[in-house]
């Protein structure tokens, strides 16, 4: 389909989302329907364009770029597959080589990142997001599927390598959960939005301790419900192959289930944490010190046993919390 010779109406029939371009740029789709974009723009009076602060040539070339980018976003899922992400070592803050030869990360794997505050966790995550190629302060290199990554991962607005979930994130839009998810689905050009939204709501309700309805405003959700919705939404709607988590607070959300949901969507999950349960849930943990990765530890069988014990305590604390909330008396842990 040729963007330059088709009428806007013909383009719209194939790509519903070009309507968004018209709305965001204050253009009138009704008038444009029977014309090519270029003819439509030529038919708008100079004065009117000046009022809208639009430049005819720029709008035309932006339109072509926009349609091309969106078509790529729709068709490129295969090209965006990350089957393997590799970190090649650089230097720590003191200029010493890092303590590993190569780290390969695969989809459906959890890696925890531990180290004191200021030790260089953010830098590591930033190196991954920027697909560093020896050109960041750490001199690390990132490979995707054993190759030097395409630069699109650095600059594309819609195609980010890393999705982030952190402790202090909030919803700032005042919409119902349903409307909120519709908006997100629309921006991701999801064809079957209705069923995707239902899946996210179901998943989120399963993670949250207390259920919520599609009509609840996102700003009225509890901390646990918010996190549940954010995680379900990121797992199901975000196309970023890597999810970075900065702690998941142990309240109002089933953390195990949340991680399993992300893993079931073939995400690589990186988790910066000070929480022993989360650190041990991971298959491996990266030890960060002095700005570099000092060591990579596989979780041992003994550590898995410690984790099982920890989870028993976690469960006890949760049961205790529930009992107290509902006015029960407690006499033992």
């Amino acid at each position, binding site marked *: 389909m040729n963007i330059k010779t088709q009428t806007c109406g013909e383009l719209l029939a194939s790509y519903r989302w070009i309507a*968004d*371009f018209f*709305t*965001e*740029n*204050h253009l009138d789709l009704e008038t444009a329907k029977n014309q090519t974009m270029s003819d439509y723009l030529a038919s708008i009076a100079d004065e009117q364009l*000046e009022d809208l*602060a*639009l*430049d005819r040539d*720029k709008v035309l*070339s*932006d339109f072509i*770029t*926009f349609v091309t*980018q969106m078509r790529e976003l729709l068709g490129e899922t295969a090209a965006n597959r990350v089957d393997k992400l590799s970190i090649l070592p650089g230097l720590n803050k003191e200029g010493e080589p890092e303590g590993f030869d190569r780290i390969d990360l695969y989809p459906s794997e959890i890696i925890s990142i531990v180290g004191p505050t200021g030790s260089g966790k*953010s830098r590591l995550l*930033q190196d991954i997001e*920027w697909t560093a190629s020896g*050109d*960041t*302060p750490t001199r690390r290199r990132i490979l995707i599927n054993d190759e030097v990554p395409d630069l699109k991962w*650095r*600059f*594309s*607005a*819609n195609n*980010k390598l890393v*999705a*982030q*979930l*952190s402790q*202090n*994130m*909030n*919803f*700032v*839009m005042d919409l119902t959960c349903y409307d*909120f*998810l519709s*908006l*997100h689905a629309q*921006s*991701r050009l999801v064809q079957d939005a209705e069923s995707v939204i239902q899946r996210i709501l179901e998943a989120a309700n399963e993670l949250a301790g207390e259920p919520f309805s599609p009509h609840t405003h996102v700003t009225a959700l509890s901390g646990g419900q*918010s996190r549940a919705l*954010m995680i379900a*939404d*990121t797992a199901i*709607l*975000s196309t970023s192959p890597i999810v970075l988590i900065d702690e998941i607070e142990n309240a109002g959300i089933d953390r195990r289930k949340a991680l399993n949901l992300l893993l079931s969507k073939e995400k690589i999950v990186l988790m910066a944490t000070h929480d022993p349960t989360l650190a041990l849930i991971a298959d491996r943990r990266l030890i960060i010190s002095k700005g570099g990765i000092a060591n990579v530890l596989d979780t041992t069988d003994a550590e898995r046993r410690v984790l099982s014990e920890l989870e028993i305590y976690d469960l006890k604390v949760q049961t205790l919390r529930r009992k107290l909330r509902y006015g029960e008396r407690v006499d033992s842990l």
Partner: protein
Amino acid sequence: MNLVIVSGPPSSGKTSVILKTCDALKNSGHRVGVVKFDCLHTDDDKLYAAYGIPVKKGLSGALCPDHFFVSNIEEVVQWGIEEKLDILISESAGLCNRCSPYIKDILSVCVIDNLSGINTPKKVGPMLRSADIVVITKGDIVSQAEREVFASRVGQVNPRALTMHVNGLTGQGAYELSTLFYKDDLNLDTVKGMTLKFPMPAALCSYCLGETRIGDEFQQGNVRKMNWEQN
């Protein structure tokens, strides 16, 4: 010398982003200076100075700060050359969302924040639409979904820009941004003869010239009335 023009709505995080970017540029051995344009008052120059960054400020007072910028940018460039800067960053006041102080062939950066709401990209004119790089800030406090929706709205009005997320508080992303601020083969010695990317809005009515009285008989020059039929 390289010139970078940074613009963006008030409180979007321009100064924080520039400070963190300057840090990264200094660490890679570049000499960088800043000119801050504002309207009535700014203390940002003191902030820059505290970081050891050569700084000048321009207050436009009763004039539109972007018009003021255009009238002064050549002198600013000459100051940067005298100071032997590798990179001169100009920070605009960013008031009305309509204007943009961008110059053709000079790197232009628009800083806009996630908290400003998803309808903001639609409201901001050439300042966002004609920027080469769009820096989105305050991403650490909004959900992943909102970041994605916001970025996609930015992509709808400026699909050709490089879009980056920078955290002005922690500096996350600032190093990456800094690598785009300097090109070895660029050596600017004047902006004379260059043109703005987009014309400034038409002005000059009696109120531009100091009229304070209200009423038809006092309105002269470029005057326009609201369209009551379409409203």
